[in-house]
């Protein structure tokens, strides 16, 4: 069981790392939004599922089950809320006339 927990948390950390890399390296606002909106959501979900499994690992009582349910609730909430925030921010960028990065900018 420990290996499953470790694999899930390491996968979550990997997705967090790719989201950070995209946030640092991509050229404009919309592409950065594309990297963080997906990478962060999946990274947080995998990490929380791993941690919820770990809390149930040693003893199963009312306390650990409650903590595990709360962790799964945070995971599902982030899975719904993070894409919503990404969508709202992208729409704000479109309404504020933020210039998208085009092919002409690449050759400059």
């Amino acid at each position: 069981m420990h290996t499953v927990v470790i694999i899930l948390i390491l996968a979550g950390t990997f997705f967090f790392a790719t989201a950070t890399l995209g946030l640092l390296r991509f050229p404009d606002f919309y592409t950065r939004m594309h990297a963080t909106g997906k990478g962060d959501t999946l990274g947080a979900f995998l990490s929380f599922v791993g941690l919820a499994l770990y809390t149930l690992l040693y003893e199963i009582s009312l306390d650990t089950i409650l903590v595990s349910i709360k962790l799964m609730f945070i995971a599902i909430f982030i899975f719904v809320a993070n894409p919503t925030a990404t969508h709202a921010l992208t729409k704000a960028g479109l309404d504020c006339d933020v210039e998208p990065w085009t092919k002409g900018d690449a050759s400059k």
Partner: protein
Amino acid sequence: MENFFLLNSLILGCLALLCLYRGIFGPTVLDRIISVSVIGTKTTVILILIGLIYQRVDMFVDIALAYALLNFIATMAASKFFRKRGSIAPGAKYYRERGN
């Protein structure tokens, strides 16, 4: 297992510091908002890891839940503000009222 959690939270802290670069030097204000949102998502995971290291998950899980809700509300409020404002340039409303 505690050592693994400590190492993982250290890695996540380093990633949050890297995100802070975009928060400080981001070209537009929307880049800064993305950076704050990403750091907030990492912080919820780091809070649970700290709770597991100190053996007090039952307390830290509530803090993480409140942090996740607050992070979502902050991002939504900022995006709604910029949609209503219609521009990310500083002082845009003032210049529009003056007519140039």
